[in-house]
């Protein structure tokens, strides 16, 4: 079991470091930002030459360059929006679950209402009002997703606040802040970490849906989601246009999930010694 856990960690770390490193260095590696068109080499198949190792898209743009550069937007949107939602949702969930009272009721009814709203509808309305842009997409995703975390955390807190070790901490006068962040949060982290890593993947895809609908970022800026959408018409004749950005998303999510699993087990002393 220990061997597998270490393998999980190493594999996850290698994946994320490789992808993240390439994305971070994309400015150096591909100074043209993946926009250079080579109309003489449109839809080149992958692995046929050194000019375009992963082939080209219908406009003759290099897929490798676009995958690496596109990671900037996708990584950023996926991770920042998930982190933002985790932080806000966790704080709200902790406070609502621990103190209960009218605020809890208000926040949770608000969360119910928001969960009932379809995301695309919400996105279209908001973007129509405030206009498109990367920062706005992120804010929108945070607004849409914090409720999931808040509900999840609140559920755990409701049972943990009755736990005897929490009552014990109350009984020796530990301040609430320390009870919440020192005792309750570490015991409620497991499902949160898993949900967050899954949501990173979702957010990368959501960004592509929004871009596809014209609600996202500048369509000229490459992003994994945007590339998936672009390749849709060529999936029969030139599947590589879709496959490589898809693979990038898959490997990123896999890496994050492996790291998330490892992190969850590390946080749990019972799991660590099993």
């Amino acid at each position, binding site marked *: 079991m220990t061997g597998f856990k270490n393998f999980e960690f190493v594999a996850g770390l290698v994946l994320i470091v490789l992808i993240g490193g390439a994305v971070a260095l994309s400015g150096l590696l591909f100074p043209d930002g993946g926009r250079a068109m080579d109309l003489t080499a449109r839809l080149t198949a992958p692995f046929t030459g050194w000019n375009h190792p992963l082939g080209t898209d219908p406009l003759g743009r290099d897929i490798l360059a676009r995958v690496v550069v596109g990671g900037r937007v996708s990584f950023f949107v996926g991770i920042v929006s998930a982190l933002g939602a985790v932080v806000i949702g966790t704080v709200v969930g902790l406070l609502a679950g621990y103190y209960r009272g009218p605020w809890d009721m208000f926040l949770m009814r608000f969360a119910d209402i928001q969960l009932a709203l379809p995301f695309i509808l919400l996105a279209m309305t908001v973007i129509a009002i405030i206009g498109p842009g990367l920062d706005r997409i992120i804010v929108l995703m945070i607004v849409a997703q914090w409720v999931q975390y808040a509900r999840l955390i609140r559920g755990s807190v409701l049972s943990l606040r009755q736990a*005897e070790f929490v*009552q014990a901490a109350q009984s*020796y*006068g*530990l*301040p609430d802040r*320390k009870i919440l962040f020192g005792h309750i949060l570490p015991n409620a982290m497991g499902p949160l970490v898993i949900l967050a890593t899954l949501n990173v993947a979702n957010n990368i895809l959501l960004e592509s849906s929004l871009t596809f609908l014209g609600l996202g970022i500048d369509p000229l800026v490459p992003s994994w989601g945007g590339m998936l959408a672009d390749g849709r018409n060529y999936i029969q004749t030139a599947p590589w246009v879709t496959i490589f950005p898809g693979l990038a998303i898959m490997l990123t999510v896999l890496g994050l999930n492996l790291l998330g699993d490892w992190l969850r087990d590390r946080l749990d002393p019972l799991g660590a010694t099993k």
Partner: protein
Amino acid sequence: MSDTTAPILTVEDLSISFGDTEAVRGLSFEVPRGGTLAIVGESGSGKSVTSMAAMGLLKFTGGRVTSGRIQLHGKGGETEITGASEADLRRIRGNRISMIFQEPMTSLDPVFTIGSQIGEALKLHRGLRGRAARDEAARLLELVRLPNARAQLDRYPHQLSGGMRQRVMIAMAVSCRPDLLIADEPTTALDVTIQAQILQIIRDMQSEFGTSVVFISHDMGVVSEMADEIVVMRHGEMVEAGRAEDVILRPKADYTRALMAAVPKIGAMQGQENPRKFDLPGQAADQTDAHPAPERTEPLVRLDKVTTRYDLTSGFLGRVSHRVHAAEEVSFEIHPGETLALVGESGSGKSTVGKTLQQLVTPVSGRILYRGTDILSLDPAERQRFKREIQYIFQDPYGSLNPRKTVKQSLIEPMATHGLLKKADAQVADLLTSVGLKPEHAGRYPHEFSGGQRQRIAIARALSVDPGLIIADEAVSALDVSVQAQVINLMMDIQARRGLAYLFISHDMAVVERVSHRVAVMYLGEIVEMGTRRQVFETPQHPYTKRLLRAVPVMDPTRPPERVTLTGDIPSPVRPVGDPRRSHGFVEVAPGHLLADNHQDFEKYREGIAS
């Protein structure tokens, strides 16, 4: 009762393994026809595993029989359970052997009515359907003395109390007139008066149907009331076996003797003024030193008419419709160095009193004075500082330590909170040594310790801030008897050394008799009788106290168990808003011995509430 013609069940050289670990080794015993065999042992002794093997349920728990055999000699002829096919086992289970489990809360399916669950057993094994099954189910419930048997058939498990559920389990278990009934800790989760009723019902069933019983328990008192023969187990091996009388009165094995010494025996403290530690073998000789009496000067803590109620809300807007009257006008004093025991059954409000005193819940009215200071009138910051003076030890040693913190982190936290942390490592080492653990345990996590060790850690944590009073809320109830005796001895040592006061909350009369200077008996949120331990135990005045004391199983196999009158459950303390119960006053029957002034109305009053 015992008929020695032929045994009903023989176990020969049985060994059971879970993976690579052996849970039971070379166990042999016979269950007498129509008699009761008790298997006694502490946790991990393999007693429950043995009973699962006898039911042929072992493979569902991940274990397997590695050698030996179990044979049932029932009315349907010989069956070897260890070699039987699954189809044969299904016919035997519930039909010729049936089982009662410990947890009446979970052993009934919550989504089916009582009637349909008993009906299912009757259909499966006796082919009864519809009207006939319903009539038979009602008859069975009458047999286990469930009031209004026919009406109960349509109720769901959650609508019944623990004691009533356990009666339903018994009714189901005997529904097919089994040859053998296996009862695995059937009364451990129940209150003592309810336990007495359930034991009575099992005895009645036995004499009515001639059923043989395998009774598994850790409680020597209960075993002594039920068993004809006893098997004592430890670490999967049989330590001693024999007739109940011999094993209890003349134990041969060292382990059995140690176990008996650790069992608190009610009445053992007669004539003693002060508490006394258990005489455990291998313990230092300072046993004979009398436990110190408390200082009768100024009281350390005084509760003055403390009333705590919990709101129950209902409906969409969360309107308060009912209140749990958990503690009503509770008043008492605890002196420095004194142990006051708060006894009562579940729902009596004894834990609520502890939690109110610890400021974990806020009372509706009343005053709590600590060395003359009214804690409740202080501002929040002062109150927080006061939490240092009173510490709490919880019942569950598995739940009261944060599983994600090391022992050291858990011990440091209270000291850091109250600014008492100087040299962390040395302080932690001192604390661990003072509760009989080793300083090198500091870096470990709670799951690496046994229940008794965890409770020692919890005690160390309570001691870390040098409090004046420790509230021990059922602090030893979840422990094995031998560990329980050690932890009680430790607590008394600490009291003698530091002059600590304890509020000892417990349902176990025998333990209370051992540890306390004074005793307060609670019933339905009120103290009904309070006095020194000798006053309450030797001259109990209140009918409820007498009933409690009578219900405690006595470890004396020569005395036939007392016939228990089967009265109902403890009434509920939940009352509608605006309908408070009238509190009673007290009369002083002897100096310091207080008695509820309405004690004569008790039985009437109880009936009135129950109906």
